[in-house]
């Protein structure tokens, strides 16, 4: 799985939503671009948030002490 920075992705989507909320005159072209961008971030976030089994690795004490 490619490395997704969940925190950054969610922040970017929030920024896009804020852009839509605050923009007085929406530039449709720019809006479409933002939607595309936001959809990609949502997709990435959703992929990262899929239920993925945790990986457990136990430190071998003897190896650590060498």
């Amino acid at each position, binding site marked *: *799985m490619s490395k997704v920075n*969940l*925190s950054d992705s*969610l922040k970017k*989507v929030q920024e*896009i*939503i804020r852009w*839509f*909320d605050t*923009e007085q*005159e*929406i530039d*449709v072209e720019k*809006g479409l671009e933002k*939607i595309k961008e*936001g*959809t990609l971030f*949502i997709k990435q*976030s*959703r992929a*990262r*948030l*899929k*239920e*993925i*089994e*945790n*990986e*457990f*690795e*136990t*430190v071998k*004490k*003897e190896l*650590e*002490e*060498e």
Partner: protein
Amino acid sequence: MLRILKQWRDEQARREGVETFRVFPNAVLQSLADTLPKNKEEMLRIKGLKEAKFRKYGKELLHIIREQSSHQGDQEKSKEKTKEENINEVSDAGVSDQTLSVSQFLDGLNTELSGMASRVQGEVSSVDERERVIYFTLKDSRDESTLNCLIFRFPYDVSGVKLTIGDEIIVEGVPDIYKPSGRLSMKVGVIELSGVGALQKAYEALRLKLEGEGLFAPERKRVLPTFPERIALITSEQGAAIGDFSMNLGAQGFKVTFFPTSVEGKKAVFEIINAIRYFNRQKDKYDVLVIVRGGGSLESLQAFNNETLVREVAHSSLPTLLGIGHERDVTLAALVADKMVSTPTATAKELRLHFDEARQLVKYFETHLPLLFSQQLTLVQRHIDEESTKLLSFVEYFRTLFTTLHRDLRERFFLLLSIKEQKKEFLNYGRDALSKGFLFILKQSKETLVFQNDRLMQYDPLRVLRSGYSLIRQGTRIVKTTDEIKIGDVVSLQLSRGKMNATVEEIFEE
């Protein structure tokens, strides 16, 4: 086999209060595991294992190897050999009938004593704290029996117990005779306070000390990563804590690196410190350091109130999250952590908290973002409609304006044309009138000139002269009376035709 040997080595080192390599380095243990020596000769062939070490640990090691070998199969055969080896070892130990030197005897005693690691409780009756070693005596309150003890500085500091006369303590160690004095002492590796009252007192004292240093201050606390992914976990392999923690983590794709340690007893202090240091040496590999343990009494949680361990947590480079259950007082390790919760389950929930929130947020984004865009598009559509209507009304306005202007211009143009025609006529009339007037004035002037000429002709002196008159001048002056001349003057006479000079000869007065 290697794992068993290492466990034995670690336990022995802990009892003696020394570093593990001082008992046996890993290479020796590896050789023991590889060659599985069955007697003293085979064991002494191993590099790094000399006579003195054999005297101290040989018997026990042979026993362990034998035990493990028998577990791994070939049990009957191994037992047979064991009998022989036991016989050999007893004779190797050399405490039979032969005469021994004092040193040999004491070495033999120490070998025997090294296998008598014990846990002893007593009251501290004297303390002699030196730079590297702390000597103290333990007294049995029932019969005044006394035990000399010593502990090296490092395990003493790690134990977190300040020896004070009168304190009831428990020590773990190995008895040993110091050969130059023949005095028996307990070489202590671990000291614990005994009794809840003493523990409570020590807890309060350390809490105040750490608080005074500002180790609990909120401004020291670091914010844990919102989405931690790589978790460094320290807890026991046994017990419910690891199960509760794992079960409640949910499937978030965490990468948990688990360092199993004891979580109770003095052994726990060493092991947890070791684990914290291990993770901090590779701090770039982890997002958060998590230590969990189920609930317990003050006594069972002593490790987490140990000063050295608490400071290790406080100075961890990795952000720390502690979930240590407790009955009354929160452990000091939890108080210095960046974040503390009360149970292993709560720890897991804390780690997954933002993931759960993020899922909800993503769901919200999924529906809200297209909706928001659709709303914005509707707004844009409305805006376009409004603007189009406005534009059309402008177009209509300009069209009307243009029509009006066009008509107006046309009218004005015709008006101008008619004015032009009028002016042209007027000019033509003016030109004719001017022409006529000019001719009239010319004619009139001509007539006036003729008339004036006629009049001038009437006044012309030549006309008089032609009638027979003449003009007399003296010089340039016309002579009008006789007073103006005298006899003898020469005067000039102008006739109608020609001139002549005359001399005045006589003057006749009237």
